[in-house]
Each structure stands twice: as C-alpha cells, then as structure tokens.
C-alpha cells in the first residue's frame, strides 16, 4: 500500500515538474530599475508579460521599434533602446521622468498608431514602464532630468496674442508649421527625425489635441523642452516665460476646432483691424 502511495506521490511530482518545465519559458527575469509613477512602483518582471501582450507588435521584442507591424506604421514606433523621448517635462537631452512616460502610455499619441492605454489598470502601466526601461543602459547610468518649472499662465489678452504672433513670425516657426499653422510651411517636406524618417510638423488648424496633452501647460512645455529626436528644438535659452505664454496664446488662435479665449479675441480683432494685420512670413 505504502509503495503505491509513494509511487503516486512520485507520479504527482513528475507531473508537477512537467508542468513547471512547460511554464518555465514564460517565467521572466527582467532586472528591475526603480520606477515610480502615479504613486505606484513598477515591476519589470510583471511588465514583461504585459509588454509582450500589448506593445511588442510595434515596439518589437527587443524594444528597438522594429516589431512585425513597424514596417507599415507612420510615424515609426519609438526605439526604446535609444532612450530618446519626445514628450517630457525635463530639459532637452535628458531622460524623462517616469511620470512623463506613464502619462504618454496613458494618453497615447494622437494621430498615430499609439493608442491610449488608460483601459489598463495603473499598476500594469507602471509595470510596463519598468520593463521598457530595461531596454536601454542609459537608465542605469543617467538620472532623469529635473522637470522644468512652468510659471502661472498670465491672463489671455489680445496684446499677448499679438506678441505671440510676432514671435511666431520672427522665430520662423511658420517655416515648418505654415503661416496658418497647417503644418505646410516651406521646410515641412524636408523634415526628418533623428532616424532619417520623414516627419510632419503639427497641424494646428485640423488638430484638436496635441500629442503631448491638451492643456496650455502642455503646449508651453514643448517650447521649453523641445521634442528630442525631431527637428523641434528647445527654446528654453531664447524664450522668456512670458514670451512662451504669448506664443501659447497665439497658437490657440490657429485652432478653429478648439474653443478658446485666444481664438475669440483674435477673431474679434481681425474683424476690426484687418488692414493692420500683416501676413505671416511676408517678406522673409
């Protein structure tokens, strides 16, 4: 009797070993890097399975942006091995904060193949983020930059809008974004990202959401941090905070699909001062 019990026990162990053996390839050994966002701590090992469920088709198993589907995607998926990220709160050339990346995963990137992953529980998003950070050694050798300070937005006035318009003209933003903000400036066809892929300037006229968010603060951040890996530089060394806010107020006038005080002020002004308004880019 004892013999049969022992035999049965050994049989059970053998089956358990078999199951464990089959499950082994699914086990994950990703190295954790401290990752914190939204009050949660990421776990790269948990994130690996999630990454392979949700992200691998575009970003690839190696995180190099060369997933099966990447060849059909425009713009191309982010290459995590380079650790160059566009939508940051940190100065140009620095790593983003975990919260920056978490916000991008949550928000998605409008008008691209990157959807909003808000349907996933927050912990899953932080876990994926922790795993993404294992693709580049930069995360081990560098610290994220210090987020820039965004001063309070001054009141929106027609004067602010007009100063912003002047900056848009003088800084030659229109050369890429076009005089009406349609993303059709004379330089637009020549633009490429740092991998040589053609890239389109943002079309303010038809766009309602920015890829970095929807608020004026999000727009402000773009001037001051730049979009690393794209031709959009940081103007932190050129623009003073009030200038940047003026530019924000003007750019809102280029968005007929988005209701804003800037747009209302500008429409009223244009009705009464049409003869004084010089076309953007004229004579340059």
């Amino acid at each position: 009797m004892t013999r049969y019990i022992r035999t049965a026990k050994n049989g059970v162990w053998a089956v358990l070993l078999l199951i464990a053996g089959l499950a082994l390839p699914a086990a994950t050994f990703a190295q954790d890097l401290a990752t914190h966002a939204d009050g949660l701590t990421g776990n790269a090992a948990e994130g690996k399975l999630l990454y392979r469920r949700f992200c691998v088709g575009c970003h690839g198993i190696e995180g190099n942006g060369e997933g099966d589907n990447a060849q059909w995607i425009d713009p191309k998926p982010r290459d995590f091995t380079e650790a160059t990220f566009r939508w940051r709160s940190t100065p140009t050339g620095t790593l983003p904060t975990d919260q920056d990346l978490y916000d991008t995963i949550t928000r998605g990137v409008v008008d691209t193949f990157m959807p909003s992953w808000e349907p996933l529980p927050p912990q899953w998003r932080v876990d994926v983020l922790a795993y993404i950070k294992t693709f580049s050694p930069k995360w081990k050798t560098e610290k994220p930059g210090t987020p820039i300070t965004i001063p309070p937005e001054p009141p929106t006035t027609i004067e602010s809008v007009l100063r912003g318009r002047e900056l848009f003209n003088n800084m030659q933003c229109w050369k890429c974004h076009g005089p009406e903000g349609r993303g059709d400036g004379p330089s637009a066809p020549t633009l490429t990202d740092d991998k040589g892929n053609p890239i389109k300037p943002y079309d303010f006229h038809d766009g309602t959401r920015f890829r970095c968010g929807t608020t004026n603060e999000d727009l402000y951040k773009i001037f001051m941090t730049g979009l690393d890996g794209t031709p959009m530089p940081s103007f932190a060394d050129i623009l003073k905070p009030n200038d940047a806010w003026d530019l924000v107020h003007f750019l809102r006038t280029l968005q007929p699909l988005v209701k804003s005080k800037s747009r209302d002020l500008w429409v009223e002004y244009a009705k009464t001062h049409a003869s004084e308004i010089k076309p953007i880019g004229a004579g340059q």
Partner: protein
Amino acid sequence: MASISFETRTIKVLSGAGVLLFLLAIFFVSPKPARGIPAFARKYGLPCSACHITWPELNNFGQVFRDNGYQMMNERDSPITRDASYFPITVRITPQWHMERANEQLVDSVPGDGTSAPLNQSVTTSGFDLSGMDLWFAGTLFKNVTFSVLPSSDENASFHFENAFVRFDNLAGSRWLNVKVGKFELDEPVSEKRLWTLSGNGGFYYIYHFLPYGDANPFGGMGDNQLGVEIAGHSVNSYTRYAFSVLSSDDGQPGFIYGGTSNPTGRTYDYYGHFEQGWNTSGLGGGFLKVGGYVYYGFAPTYYQTSGGASLYGIGNEPFYRAGAEIKYYANKWVFKGVYMHAYDNAYLANGIPSNSGPLPAGAQAVVWNGGFAEGQYIVSPQWVILFRYEGIRMAQQANTAINSNQSNMDAFTIASRWNPFMFSRAGLAIQQEYSVVRSNGVTSLGGVLTPSACPATSNSCNVLSQSLFFGFDFDF
C-alpha cells in the same frame, strides 16, 4: 527492489509522456492559433493579444475599443484615414477532431428496426469535422458611425445573419450616449459570442440558453443575438458601463417569426438592461474588479390570431425573465468570472398551454430555476491560455408538480487550453484542446437545450453523462 523498479518505470513513463507531449506541441506549434476580428488588428497594427485575453475573448482594452464603436479615438478611425485598399473583412472556421459520448440513450435493440424494443445504451461517436464559418465585415463607416455585418453559416454552409447593425457613437460628444440598431449580441455579463471554448458540451454558457425539460417557452436565450435598439454608455476606461435594449419578441429571427419556430410574433417587445462597475485593486497583481447586474424581461406568444386557419401573429403573450449578477476579476496573469442567474417562465409558457384556454390544469405552474458559472483562466503567455469552468443549474420549481424536483438539474465542467503559435496583427491561428462533461438529471444536454433521454421523468437518480473531447485548429484572417 521490485518497488523501486516499478516507481522508476512509472516516472520514466510519465517523463516519456511529457517529452512526447512536448514534441507534439513543438510539431503542432511550429507552423500559430476564436471570434476575433483581424480586420481591426490590421487597421490599427496591434497584435491579437492587445485586445484579447485570447481571441475572441476581450480584455479591457478590447472592451473599451468595442465600447467606442470599434474606434481607438486617435483621429485615425474614419475609413478615409486608411489606404483605399483596406477592407474590413474576417473569415473564421475551425477544422477539428472531436468525440461525443452520452450514456442512457434510447437505441433500437435491432439496428434498423424501429419497432424493436428500445435499450438504454451509451452512444459514442468521433471523427474529423468542421465548425460553422463566420464571414464578418465590421468597422467604421465614418468617424463615430460603426457597422457590423456577420453572415454566419453552419458546417454545411447554410447562412444566416448572426449580426447586422449600425451604431452611432459618442452622440452629443458624450461616450455615455451610443445607439445601436439591428441584430446584435446583448451586452451580457460575460459575452458568449466571445467564448473561446468550442466543444459540443463546452462551447456555450448553459445558463444563457437553458430551458428545463418540458418547458415550451420558445425563447432561445440571452445568448442568442437579438433584434432591436440598444442605448449604451461607458466611462473612459469602461469600468463603468450601462446598456439598455428594446427588442422585438422574436429571439433575433427576422420577419416577425419567433426564432427556432415557424410561428409568427410581432406584437410585443422584450427589454434588457445591464450595468457594471469596476475598480482598480492594489493586491493580486494590481488588476481590477468588476461587478454588475442584468435583467431580461420578455414575452412569447402562447396562441395565434389566424385567418383561414393560418397563423397571422402571436397573441396570448406571456412573460418570462432572466435576472442576475456577475463578478469578474482581471489580474496580470489570471482572469476570474462568475455569473449568477435567476430565471422564471410563466405557467402558460412553461406548460405550452394557450393562455385563453381557461384555468391551468392541476399541477401546472410557473417554472423557476437558478444557475451560474465560475470560470478561471491562467495566461501562461500572451499566446497560451488555460481555462477551467464549472456551471451548475438547480430547479427551484418545476412546470408541473408531477415532475421530480431535481429533474433537469445539471452540472458542467470544462477544461481547455488554447495556444497561438504566432501572434501578430494580420491573422490568428489557435491550437485548442478541450474536454467537457455535463451531468444532467433525466435529460441529455445538447447545445444548452435539454432533450429527453432514456431516463424516465419520474426517476430521482438517473444522471445522464455527456462528454466531449475536442482538438481543433481555430483560425481567422
């Protein structure tokens, strides 16, 4: 010594079996593996696993996508944003081998002689087979205007419209207001159309279709797609959802004919409502929990207005309802689902008696039962999922007091493995193994419908055991 050899031999045999299983797996896997829509994967460039636990079962990301009207809400949803060659079509079919076995079946003692004395016997059949085929067109007609047309056939290519609807999404700019018109799956607590178990006894949820032995209600069940209009809404992550439908009382059959019959209807409407709420959790892998409730309240005719003897439309419409609650938990690697149902059929419906025929016969009464299922899934990898499900139904009140109290009680167990050898955004192939067994009292369970067995209705202990073993290659493109 003999004992050691015996044990060693046992382990060797088990190890050998393991190696054989492994080699078989490699053999089958080297070339990848229910209702998913690769047309969407192709449109948005996402692998099946982005929207599905394993296709066709939706995860929450897929649920949000569906709730948004098959839109990512990324300004690339309208067909005008896609190459003109993009065509939203999906085909799905499942070549398979399966075995079906049921005991307590009535057979003729002399094969071919219908007049010979009947015998109780087990019946076993097996062989290679095909599933039905889906040919599904679905997508957006315009931003925030969604369509779906699903001609679906049985295994002999006899087609019907499984669904066909148009949906107007985000009305008044609000995700809380979406309107769907046509034939569609109800917003069920757990979708049966997206169930990935496929065997003869495990390929459906019994509670969605169950009718006790003798119940004459023609309603095919909540699991059937229905004709009507649905108003639905959801929060940004679909943790909070609601749906309310007004449906023709025809079980989804077009032409004012009650589904599954040739009888006319067309005089009443059914109503269905479902609400669910979810919460993030901090433990158990940081997943999320959803709870909800649902009610289906319907009518079915018990006799007909005639002209020259021919039925014109159903009258004597009597009520029935199905109501219950669900709980679902989604962790990183685990999914748990539980659904409870309480069901009631009016006495005239349950006994098949026209409601204008006067008082009910002695013993006739409404039929009432309770049921539910609990299902667990383990996500071994994005490509491999294992499932276990238990489902039980218990009669609370029979249609007639002469029927034994446990007649039609049933228990069903299903275990299944589904493996996708490859996973990308173009097509899907799943290699599936499944075993299901159903024990029912006094009746045989086939497709959620109970049919008479050799067991007498007065028996208290006649359990019919129906088993299915299934190996299939489920693919869609």
